[in-house]
Every structure is written in C-alpha cells, then in structure tokens.
C-alpha cells in the first residue's frame, strides 16, 4: 500500500436515519498521519459521518475504505479491531465502572501497558487521582480526558474524535491542545470534529468542511487560515471571532 494513499476514504457515502437523508454523498479523504479537521455548523452531518465510519449507522449507499480494506458493511467491533478508536460526542464513558476499569476495557490486549499508562497520566494527571473511583465521579472535563485516554491507551491507526472541547473551560482546552499535540507525535492519524476554530487552527493539518450532508471544501488548514473570505463563506464567521 502506497504511503501517500489516504488512510481513510469515503466515496459517495449516503446515510439515512429513518426517513431522514442525512449524508448526501460524502467524499472525504483522510491522509495518513497528521490531524484532519472536520468542520461545519450544527446539523451539517459531522457526527453522522463519524458514526457511519464506525459502523454505528449503516451507510445506505457509497463506500468507506480504511487502510486498504472496504469496511462499509463491517460490524462495529470489527471496525474497531481494524485499528480505529472512537471518542463520541457524549464521551461514552462508563460511569459505574472505575477509571481503571474503563481503561482496562479499552486495552484489548488484556493488560494496560505501564509505559503507555505513565504517558497518559502525564497528559491527564486527574485520572491518576480517580483511578479506583467510579468514572461518574469525574467532572465534565475529566470525563472528556478519560474518553480520550481510553482511545489512546493502546496504539491505534486512526482516531475519530467528536467535539472534545464541547462545554469545557478554556483552561482545560489548553490542556487538551497539549495532549493532542503529543498524540500527533506518535504518528497517529486523527479525524477531529470541532466547532471551535481556534482549537482547530492550532492543531489541524488538513481540513474538510461539511454542509447539508456533503463535504463542500477540503484542503490544507494553512490555506484556510489565511483566507478570511473563504472562512467567511464556509463558516459564516471570521477566524478570530469563532471561538
């Protein structure tokens, strides 16, 4: 497999939820390595795209290719085992399980690697404090950290992350930017859905913008960051005010 081929590719993906046609022909190519931002206003279909990739919703048409395999019709557990980690919008942590158990579940190999765990504690110190307590005791920001920690506790090829900064205090967001930067250094590929453009700008390498169930723009983040008019057209607001 050529190194320049995209790790993840969506071709004409359509998804229906009940009678609603949410994704109407999504074309998306996520390059290997680096962080791709998926931007767009509410209701554009970003979360649906992630869920479709993950197999939680079944695409009614089109194809999803991952690392050379066509995963469109695969069951969610198999898609996960192919090397994709998913951090959903509602965090999806198990409140009744302890922090340790949450991480243990994510460590498919059976045990948590010590070195990896130390690295995670370095990124998110709060998790060490709550190690043996139910995850439901964590604050919102800490739960988000746990959700990300769970995704990174073992090496994965692709991370699908849905709005990690939603509802978080700015101080925690700074923390998270640092964590993502470190994650990028592990040569992982990340597809990140965000509404916070400042966050996006500081981390993103490439960007795709969605509207009405389609990708209406894709390119490099640098290009978008410089072009105020383009930002305005695509996102309705200029970069600086879009917090």
């Amino acid at each position: 497999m050529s190194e320049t081929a995209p790790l993840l590719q969506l071709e004409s993906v359509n998804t229906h939820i009940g009678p609603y046609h949410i994704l109407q022909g999504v074309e998306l190519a996520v390059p290997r390595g680096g962080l791709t931002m998926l931007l767009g206003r509410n209701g554009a279909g970003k979360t649906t795209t992630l869920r479709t990739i993950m197999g939680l919703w079944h695409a009614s048409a089109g194809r999803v290719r991952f690392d050379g395999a066509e995963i469109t019709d695969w069951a969610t557990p198999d898609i996960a085992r192919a090397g994709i980690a998913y951090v959903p919008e509602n965090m999806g942590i198990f409140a009744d399980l302890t922090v340790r158990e949450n991480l243990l579940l994510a460590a498919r190999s059976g045990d948590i690697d010590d070195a990896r765990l130390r690295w995670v504690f370095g990124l998110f110190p709060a998790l060490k404090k709550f190690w043996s307590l139910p995850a439901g005791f964590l604050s919102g920001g800490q739960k988000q950290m746990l959700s990300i920690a769970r995704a990174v506790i073992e090496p994965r090829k692709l991370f699908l992350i849905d709005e990690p900064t939603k509802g978080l205090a700015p101080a925690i967001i700074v923390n998270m930017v640092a964590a993502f930067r470190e994650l990028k250094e592990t040569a992982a590929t990340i597809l990140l859905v965000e509404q916070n453009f400042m966050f996006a700008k500081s981390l993103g390498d490439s960007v795709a913008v969605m509207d009405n169930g389609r990708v209406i723009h894709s390119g490099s983040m640098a290009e978008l960051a410089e072009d105020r008019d383009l930002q305005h057209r695509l996102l309705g607001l200029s970069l600086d005010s879009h917090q």
Partner: protein
Amino acid sequence: MTDIDAGELAKRRHYDWAPLLLLPLLALAALPLIGSPSTWATLTAAGLAMGMIIFIIASGLTLVFGLMDVLNFGHGAFISVGAYVAAILLVPLSGLLQADSLALNTVALLALIALAMIATGLLGWAFERIIIMPVYGQHLKQILVTVGGMIVAQQLIIVLWGPVQLAFPLPTAFRGAIVLGDVAIERYRVIAVVVGLVVFAGMLLVLNRTKIGLLIRAGVENREMVEALGYHIRRLFVGVFAAGSALAGLGGVMWAFYREELTPGMGMEVLVLVFIVVIIGGLGSIGGCFLGSLLVAVTANYAGFLAPKVALGSNIILMVLILLWRSRGLYPVANR
C-alpha cells in the same frame, strides 16, 4: 433514552447511600405498628427470606433487560419449569430428603437446584435463539411473543404434569423453627437467606472480578460504546439470557419449597412481584434489585400482618412512592 437531569448528575459525584437507608427505616417504622418485637422479628425474617428468593429470580430479568434491552414477560415460565423439573427428583431422592440430617438434605437440595438450573438454562438458551432473537429491538413484539411463550409453557406444564397442584414438602431437617427467646424463626427461611446471599455474592464476584462481568456491566450502561471498543457483545447475549433463566429456575425451586406446593400458575404469581422489584430497583442494577427485593418482600410481610386485604396494594404504593422519589428506580444504570 431519557436524559439524566442536572440534579441526578450532581448526585452521582458521591456514593449514593440514601436508598440503603430505606430498609432499616421501613423496619423501624413497622415496629411500633406491629407492637410485639417477637412478631416483628418473625415477620422481618420471613420478609428477608422471601426477598432473597425474589432477588434470585429478579436478578436474571434485570440483567437481561439491562444488557440486551429485552423484556422477557415469559420469565415466569422459567420459574415454574425449574420447580416442576426439580420435582422429578423428589421421589428418587426421597431418602435424602426425608433423612433428618442437615447435610443430607442439603445434598438433595443442591441436586434439585442443579437439575432445575441445567434444565432452565438450556430452555433459556433455546428460548433466546428461537423466540427472542428474531424480534431484537422491537419491544412491542417482544412483549407479545414472550407472553405467548409463557402461555404455551404453562399449558405444556399442565400437559406433562397435570393441572392440579403437586406437593413439594420441605426436607425433614429444614422444617421447624429456631427459637431465640421469644422469637421463632423458621429454619427454611434462614436457608433461603443463605442461598440468596451466596447467589448475590457470586454475582458480584463475576460482575466485578471477571472480564465478562466487566463487559456485562459496561454493556448494560452503553452497549454501543462497548462495540466501538471492539467487543462483539451480542455474543454474550444468549449466555446472559441462559444464566438469567437458570437463576429463575433456582428461584423456582426455592419458591416451591417456601410454599410447599407446585401449581402451574406459580410463575405468573411471582412475576408481578418480580416486575415491581425490577422497577423499584432500577433496570439493569443488581444492587438495586437486591435492595428492591428485600423492600418488596418485607413490605408484603408487614402488610400481610397489619392489613391483609391490601397486601399487594402495599407494594404498589411502595412502587409509586419510590418512583415519585426517583423516577427510574433506586439505582438506575446510567444510560437508560
């Protein structure tokens, strides 16, 4: 999916002790009403014993619903089947059962339980694959199909064992009461409590110390996320269902001894109480189920003494009060 409101979310930052106070409060409140401490003690013991048996039966139902989102209205059938199948051994084991030895009686009890659990476990396996799997996710059809299954099961019991009640006498050494001063506590009730505690402990062990238990607990909370972590959780379903059915069978044997008789409709009778317990405890919660069972059984016993005509009504009132306090039960599992 219901949203947890902000108040409940705040509560979850600490251990939730409040519901645990309900049982002692209830017991204390009943004491002056009942008057005599010895009667109170007898009633409370009876309530605890009955509660344990109901817990054994209800735990299977709540786990199945919590994990698989399946409403098995046919759970009552497994109760009856377990007892009736165990009855097959009543005559062959009569030597052990009639001996006045605790040890021999216990061996016989274990044999009966083993047979009941194997039979209902297998039946549960078949039931899940044949009857329930085709209607996953369709609650309405599940209710209909499992009710239908229960009707058929009850009729088949009558076909095989006849319509009249059968005697299910207690083994000799289980009879009688232990007398502590003024208080007489029936031996069998103590045994029921022991069995119930063993089952509870066993469940907690499996759920908290094994990987499968971990998967079940996580799956009850958020099945989708467990799959997104790479686990084929549906493969657990039939096993959990079979285990739940086996527990119902165990409960059936214990219940049959409690009543000292078998009737084809016995499963249905207990089912109403089981539903009340599961609602009170919170769907999917074993701890809630345990607490709920004790509350319901103790309430039934107190009410049976104080106001026999409204015994079942007392449990409805209990259920209403608890739901007014916590609309999803005492310990609802997070995501439902």
